[in-house]
């Protein structure tokens, strides 16, 4: 505990950098997965290819990916953009399938009745299909959120500032308290975030609980 008290500002700073890497990646994978999932669903021929390709992204070992991306895109290994890009790819690996499943979960009767009411194709997507895909999208987003928050730590092996540095540094210098702090704060962050997402879902989708 005394180690934690003595290093509070440093832990706070690393938590903040951790969030600044995880949040954009979570948000980006969510936003990018929706059109990809929509495409996989609308053009059936692309579904298997697209979903398999997305899933395979997850098979790329994370450390090499952090080193590989700069070679392709030309940014520095420790740059913000590199870390966010790599995390977004992993997020997409999980989220594209979720998005495709979510949009597919909207029933044919609802689609047909919206068409019959006179929704145009785009208003039907924004006002009917996307909101109704919400619960399944949220389920996918929760997995992505937890997985991304934990994956950020890998980039600390390259020297990127985040909570992972606590256990890299603590391990090298033999400070057990630092290692434990790194793990506990990372898990706490993931749990808090998951809770916030559930809360957000209840606020945005009050109808979902009526369905059961």
């Amino acid at each position, binding site marked *: 505990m005394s180690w934690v008290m003595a290093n509070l500002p440093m832990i706070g700073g690393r938590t903040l950098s951790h969030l600044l890497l995880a949040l954009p990646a979570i948000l980006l994978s969510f936003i990018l997965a929706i059109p990809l999932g929509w495409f996989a669903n609308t053009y059936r021929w692309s579904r298997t290819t697209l979903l398999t390709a997305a899933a395979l992204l997850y098979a790329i070992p994370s450390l090499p990916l952090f080193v590989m991306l700069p070679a392709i895109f030309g940014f520095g290994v420790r740059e913000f953009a590199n870390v966010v890009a790599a995390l977004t790819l992993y997020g997409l690996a999980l989220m594209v399938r979720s998005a495709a499943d979510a949009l597919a979960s909207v029933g044919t009767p609802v689609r047909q009745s919206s068409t*019959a009411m006179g929704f145009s194709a785009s208003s039907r997507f924004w006002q009917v299909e996307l*909101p109704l895909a919400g619960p399944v999208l949220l389920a996918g987003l929760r997995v992505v959120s937890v997985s991304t928050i934990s994956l950020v730590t890998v980039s600390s092996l390259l020297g990127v500032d985040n909570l992972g540095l606590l256990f890299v540094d603590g391990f090298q210098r033999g400070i057990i308290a630092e290692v434990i702090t790194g793990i506990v704060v990372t898990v706490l962050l993931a749990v808090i975030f998951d809770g916030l997402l559930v809360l957000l879902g209840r606020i945005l989708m*009050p109808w979902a609980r009526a369905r059961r």
Partner: protein
Amino acid sequence: MIRFDHVSKSYPDGTEAVRDFTLELPSGQTTVLVGSSGCGKTTLLRMVNRMIDPTSGTVWIDDENVADVAPVPLRRRIGYVMQNAGLLPHRKVIDNVATVPLLNGVPKAEAHAKALELMELVGLEATMATRYPDQLSGGQQQRVGVARGLAADPNILLMDEPFGAVDPLVRADLQAELLRVQRELHKTIVFVTHDIAEALALGDQIVILAKGAAIAQVGSPQQVVAEPADAFVADFLGLGRGAFDLHLRETPNGTLVVDDHGRPAGRLADPAKPAEN
């Protein structure tokens, strides 16, 4: 008036859902398309609001060829009620009823006021307005569906087996309600069902369809029952199974009406109390 003029619909795989269908559906009346599943009745219904476009032939609404009207505005001026109501589960009842006026840009307060009136018309309490569809019974959902179909005050109401998924008692209730609403509003209703009893209860004009939407008979309920055009119609009505030839039978408990198999179909009403219609 809706007019089908030599309308056909075939699919690339060769199936012919509708073959050369011609019929006039008079304004302000209920026309029931009745037939077994797969006879093409729903296909016909969906040609009116262009959910399906015919392969050949023309569908007219008054003097307008529907093929010349863009589908989205066309659909917004035609009411549509479907099986299981097809309500939007993420919107409250009142917003479901107001769907089309809201799409048309009617201010929310105005659309909601009108929606409350319609809910009352179809027998829904105002307290239901803020519930979600999944919190309602099947019958109530169906009433919401009817109110939604009427919300933009369309001349035409298309109903695709709207009461098919509710239990018989509720169905009879909904049918009675529809008749009452129709006496008040005089819409041009196209009603699709596979239930001949429902057709007889609701139709001013009944169209009995065979495969490929071939017209087996068109007529009033009285005509169809009194003079079935052929063996197919007679069988469809249940004549062959003895359900429509009724007999009087004296019993110790009064005069009963029985079918050909002797099964009681009802009792003879007091002659002093004539039927409603």
